[in-house]
């Protein structure tokens, strides 16, 4: 993220966004209706050219939030203020289908599962070229040229454009998905668990590709993932979600080294670190119980039934997402009453213990020899 990007108007400003689903209860819905608050009052700024990570456990609403921004869902409340090329701002949440059309090609997505998100009966040319046809951007030879260019960009050979998805491996299929997302020259790409289904060696190839493309094309990413290691590697800023709310939002380094919300600390402590020597140094924060049912959320702070630091105030007062004091120019927000007083432990503190530091030096030395 460059310095001047901080000062300019965000590319997308999400304000008080909520998404409520109404579902039937009981067999075929005969026991009446109930509501599930998947996303509640989310405020989020996405700045041009940055990578914003959305992290949380399954059921926390990160995918729903991503889909609301894509306007695959119509949010029940809130605004999606999107800054157009010419600098004017439009609220995507209020637009109807026809009005949304021009924005459909500016905000694109890469899906998690490369096997089920590609139509097995379409060739690469049809799959990757479809967004161009649908938006009436190109046809005929021009379409072919642009598909070839997109395929080349993601590291696939253009000669393959008449083949079907089954002829490609998992990693290549994910490249096809990325080519399809990028062919309309989008400004914002939402990658929903885009590397979660891939093997280690393929995952690193795709992560590097995403970084290269961002640099070349000046893309903005919203990267949805449950994998904190991938998030730390790729993202400039991170928003942690729990039960439909953002509980903490901060620049990546700060979030990992000094978390300000107990849930973030627990998430970080649960992360297995690929270094066996850290086993004994590690302090794990045990979380009691499980994520509550989003249809039946606890009163007060939604995290209080599982929080190891909970106090009386937490079960009645719901905290707001507020900036913590003593942070730099990029705000560090936390939804905790005691964000300023709790001494929470991040990852860096653990890995920089003196003993492990020596080990780290030793291994980096070994790498240089190689």
């Amino acid at each position: 993220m460059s310095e001047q990007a901080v000062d300019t108007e965000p590319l997308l400003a999400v304000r008080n966004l909520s998404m409520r689903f109404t579902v039937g209860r009981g067999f075929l819905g005969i026991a009446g209706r109930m509501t599930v608050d998947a996303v509640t009052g989310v405020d989020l700024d996405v700045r041009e050219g940055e990578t914003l990570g959305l992290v949380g456990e399954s059921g926390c609403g990160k995918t729903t939030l991503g889909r609301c921004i894509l306007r695959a869902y119509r949010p029940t409340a809130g605004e999606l203020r999107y800054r157009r090329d010419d600098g004017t701002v439009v609220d995507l949440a209020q637009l109807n289908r026809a009005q949304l059309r021009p924005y459909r090609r500016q905000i694109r997505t890469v899906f998690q599962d490369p096997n089920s998100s590609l139509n097995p009966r379409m060739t690469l040319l049809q799959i990757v070229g479809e967004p161009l046809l649908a938006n009436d951007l190109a046809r005929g030879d021009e379409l072919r040229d642009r598909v070839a260019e997109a395929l080349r960009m993601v590291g696939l050979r253009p000669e393959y454009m008449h083949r079907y998805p089954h002829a490609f491996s998992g990693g290549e299929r994910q490249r096809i998905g990325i080519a399809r997302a990028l062919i309309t020259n989008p400004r914002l790409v939402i990658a929903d668990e885009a590397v979660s289904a891939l093997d280690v060696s393929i995952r690193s190839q795709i992560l590097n590709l995403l970084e290269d493309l961002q640099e070349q094309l000046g893309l903005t990413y919203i990267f949805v993932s449950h994998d904190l290691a991938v998030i730390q590697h790729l993202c400039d800023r991170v928003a942690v979600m729990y039960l439909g709310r953002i509980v903490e939002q901060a620049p990546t380094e700060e979030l990992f080294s000094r978390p300000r919300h107990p849930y973030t600390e627990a998430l970080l402590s649960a992360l297995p670190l690929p270094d066996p020597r850290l086993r004994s140094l590690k302090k794990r924060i045990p979380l009691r119980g499980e994520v509550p049912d989003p249809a039946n959320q606890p009163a007060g702070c939604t995290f209080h039934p599982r929080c190891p630091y909970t106090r009386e105030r937490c079960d009645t007062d719901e905290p707001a997402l507020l900036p913590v004091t003593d942070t730099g120019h990029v705000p560090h927000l936390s939804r905790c009453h005691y964000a300023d007083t709790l001494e929470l432990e991040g990852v860096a503190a653990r890995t920089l213990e003196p003993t492990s530091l020596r080990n780290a030096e030793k291994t980096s030395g070994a790498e240089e020899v190689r």
Partner: protein
Amino acid sequence: MNHMSDTATTQPAAARSQPPLLEVRGLRTRFELPEGVVHAVDGVDLTVYPGQTLCVVGESGCGKSVTARSILQLVDPPGRITAGTVNFHVGPDHPLLTARHPSRRDQAAVRSARDGVLDLAALDPKGTAIRAIRGKEIAMIFQEPMVSLSPVHTIGHQIVEHIRTHEDVSKKEARDRAIEALRQVGIPQPERRVDSYTFHLSGGMRQRAMIALALACRPKLLIADEPTTALDVTTQAQILDLLQELREQYGMAMLFITHDLGVVAEIADAVAVMYLGLVVEECGVDELFHDPRHPYTKALLESVPVVGPRAKRRLATITGMVPHPYDRPTGCPFHTRCRDTMPGTCDTTVPPVLTTTEGRQRTVRCLLYESAEALHRGTVREEVSR
């Protein structure tokens, strides 16, 4: 967590004096399909010591799950074990060795058992002997508990059935043991949960129920096939802690299959890295992470994003992809993607197993090392180092 690392450091010394619990040698399993033969497991060697955890890591399609299933003869047709031995230490006076087995194959295998070591690969896959091993001596848990538990029976019913298959106990007693087993895996209100169905439980609770079921008969070895892959990080941490705790409590050994190197670092005593049906490196967990010898292990470690100060560095990649199972490369299976491949050597010769013993035994299959001695020093052939 402190007590865990202590045992991890003291165990190898104790383990060396003991004979291995499970010793897999030259195991080959292949699937004969109309389109061609898939050599899913192509000469695997593994050693599990009593009370220790051996992690098997590798990418999808490397044969780690088939290896685990082959140990228990659970490979579905057209899969077939074609060669190799799976020597399991059942103990010299195990009733299995004196019992009458209707199958001729079982009789022959039991007759040739020496010092209480039985070759599981020689048993009849449908015979009485392997059934007495499955669930009782070696238990297995799977990635997706929803698929491997019955949706139409209660949890309690399944555990009771399991206990009564292997032990001569009354229904009442078995039910009490089922409740106790559920309590030990940390399921709240086990007296009530024993009568619930799998769909009543959350993902983490289901995996706990699966562990309770697997451990109800106190197996000597637990094979865990990616048990935490479908779970969230916080739930994964809980399940890993639980498995460690139970392993220590029961003195059980574990064969843990995973693709996540973070999980390996957390729980393993020893690690076996698999690539295309072959164990390319097997060694202690510290040696693997801090002094890897096989080029594939090195590449794998470098391509993982790490949380911590080095998170932002660019990831190393392994070029290309895992070859298609129908056309395996000749020679070393990794030579098509290896950085240090030696043309004329790596593509013709299947690397032999090189073994050094310092600390825990380390075995590597790589032609870069001319001899076991060179492997011990970590020096590669001259033409490569230049």
